[in-house]
């Protein structure tokens, strides 16, 4: 049993956790940014998928994974803009608009895969992001093997969480965003442009979530496959709630989900006679349990999901 414990909590499991957490954490931060501004972001799943596709396609087209990242950002902002168009401009129900975006991206990526690669399952291999090995950091004990060499998106995620925290809780823009999510009319009366700010938050959120997707197709793997987001957008939303609409909390919650994912992979490689199906359910089961428990304590932004109009109607 002790041996099992050592395997499960080895450095390998923890590095895998970091890798698996990256897309969920980036998308959770995307959720935080948009929900703090009052827009429910159920479209994270679609944005991850769209980002993964755009990254893989641009990388295969140009041969440069860096241009792939750029394409993911562009696609993410386009999807964020689309959500904004519906949820802000046309005052559509946020949940419906978000789910619509998810369905759209599932269909669109499937269609484009057929058109471009003539396949339903997975794209050919595309140039992936390099693994960076950071001098000095990689030589440290414990931290070295854990943090020393990863793809750039893992480092981006690790940097983005504290930076977004500072932005949200210490910068003027962050204060304005929080005010909008709590009481948009109050924000408007002190001269904050509510809808413009919300729109910008959605663009930023789109870019973040799409980068999470790019990590799937250019970092974790080196191809795009159908529905490769596999519910990570919903897990990200749960991580965001569990993390109390805080970028650091969201990233930590994402790490928790990722850890169970890493665990279940480990368990499968060990010769333990547990049914695979049940083991694979672990991260999803945990998501449900955590959300069911956390939702009771969580206090969402007061104006989350509400439409704001310049005349106060709605």
């Amino acid at each position, binding site marked *: 049993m002790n041996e099992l414990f050592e395997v499960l909590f080895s450095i390998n499991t923890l590095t895998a956790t970091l890798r698996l957490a990256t897309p969920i954490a980036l998308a959770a931060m995307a959720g935080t940014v948009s929900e703090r501004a009052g827009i429910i972001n159920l479209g994270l799943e679609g944005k991850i998928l769209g980002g993964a596709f755009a990254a893989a396609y641009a990388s295969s087209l140009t041969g440069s994974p860096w241009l792939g990242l750029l394409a993911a950002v562009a696609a993410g902002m386009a999807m964020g803009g689309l959500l904004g168009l519906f949820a802000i401009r046309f005052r559509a129900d946020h949940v419906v608009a978000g789910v619509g975006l998810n369905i759209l991206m599932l269909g669109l990526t499937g269609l484009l895969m057929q058109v471009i690669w003539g396949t339903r399952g997975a794209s050919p291999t595309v140039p992936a992001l390099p693994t960076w090995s950071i001098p000095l950091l990689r030589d440290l004990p414990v931290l070295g093997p854990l943090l020393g060499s990863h793809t750039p998106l893992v480092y981006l995620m690790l940097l983005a969480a504290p930076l977004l925290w*500072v932005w949200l809780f*210490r*910068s*003027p823009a962050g*204060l*304005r965003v*929080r*005010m909008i999510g*709590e*009481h948009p*009319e*109050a*924000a*408007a*009366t*002190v*001269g*904050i442009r509510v809808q413009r700010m919300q729109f910008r938050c959605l663009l930023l959120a789109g870019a973040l979530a799409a980068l999470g997707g790019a990590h799937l197709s250019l970092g974790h793997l080196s191809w795009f496959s159908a529905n490769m987001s596999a519910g990570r957008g919903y897990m990200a939303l749960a991580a965001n709630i569990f993390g109390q609409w805080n970028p650091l909390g969201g990233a930590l919650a994402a790490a928790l989900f990722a850890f169970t994912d890493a665990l279940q992979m480990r368990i499968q490689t060990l010769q333990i006679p547990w049914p695979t199906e049940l083991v694979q359910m672990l991260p999803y089961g945990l998501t449900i349990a955590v959300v069911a428990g956390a939702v009771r304590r969580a*206090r969402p932004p*007061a104006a989350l999901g509400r439409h704001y109009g*310049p*005349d*106060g109607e709605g």
Partner: protein
Amino acid sequence: MAVSPPEVHGPYAIQLRGIVKRFGPVLANDRIDLDVLPGEIHGLLGENGAGKSTLVRILFGLCPKDEGEIWVGGRPAEITGPAHAIRLGIGMVHQHFMLVDRLTVTENLIAGMEPIRRGLIDLKTARQQVEQVARQYGLAVDPDARVEELSVGEQQRVEILKALLREVRVLILDEPTAVLTPQEVDELFRVMRALKAQGKTLIFITHKLREIMAVTDRVTVLRNGRKVGTVRTAETTPEELAQMMVGRKVILRVGRSEGRPGPVRLEARGLRLAGRDGRLRLRDVSLQVRAGEILGVAGVEGNGQLELEDVVTGLRQPTAGQVWIDGRALWPGPASEPGPRRFRRLGGAHIPSDRSRRGLVPPWPVSRNAVLGRQREAPFARRGLLRFQPIRRHAEAIVERLQVRVPSLEAPAAALSGGNQQKLVVGRELAFEPQVVVAAQPTRGVDIGAIELIHQALLRMRAAGKAILLISAELDELLALSDRLVVLFEGAIVAEGRTEGFTEAELGLLMAGGAGRV
């Protein structure tokens, strides 16, 4: 529409000329002129729906005007939004505070004009700015408190500070007294006079004559979207203002004849109600209402009124205690019959405090709203189907008796003004010959004319030997109608007695948690 330009712009702080605003077919503002002198407290008086709020929303840039001109400090201005209004030196204290509960006082105050140091908010400087302005105007607040921890009066102070921090010269106060206790109102008036002394111009909106008389220099009266006139406060009387407001003579206080209370009809014993967090919202509340008697329940909102209303109307089961109507038990009662249905079966009528959420189904036609709660009974239903002819006849009778102004019986209740909605609710509840009436905030947000009618309707019920429990935040109303009063504070009755035995000041003190007296 040709508008004659004002003669002189110089001496005025604000001048509005020929302001027109339409909402669909409704003319909310019909060529309104307003002249505000610098350094005065200018009252804006009118019933609900007279166009006061629309007018100041236009002035503050919250709502675009259709026609007319605005002059600020002698210069024409096209105000594009609140930010622009603030730049022009106009601030506003909103009826529903524009504050974020979860943020601190300082964060609320500086949002939109944050002092910055190295790209981040300079909280130290921000706090100093807040403290400095608070000191200058004598408005003490804790800059680090979260807004949700503050009392309503303190929150209003923060709202005023928000405008002062932005160095406004003109401050609009939109129904600022509606949410305050009498003591807090006095404090607000003190602050208003202090601001005036420091050279600020104030526009004070209210529909309460007493407040206009107490604090303003001049008053402009609006009625049905039009300006009736501007008068000097010192040269007018409440009666004259009331007449300007309503357009006819109004009885400001309905007469209450000497009562002859009969046997007890509504009785509550030892009511306790625990909230979801386990805190007691009602603490051993006992009361009796006799036939032909109105018992008033006074208190600052949030001290158990809503819970009391819910329990005595059967909506919520008390944690402990009993409620009896004419000697029959409402609580405890069998789980098989919903409380509200039992309440009605025992002869109860309920005028709920929140008419749009509990009193009416706003999208439904007036006619169907007129039978809510009795829709199962003859003649409104037969063999499980509604019968529209009797329903309409019933609605017609109510509309006529209480002079409810409706476009048609089939118009949605939402299309009615607040006062007419309330008259519809009152008419419906009193139409079924109830024995016990629970009236909660029966005149909230209702114009003077409708108040008069509703008060008369309640007094008629009293004369007919019904028992009436009147829960109200309006002291004037309680004093005018009630035979006896109880005061609720933090869920407990802290005082009880005949209405004549209380002075207004005493009641204010009791409501604020001052010494109890039973």
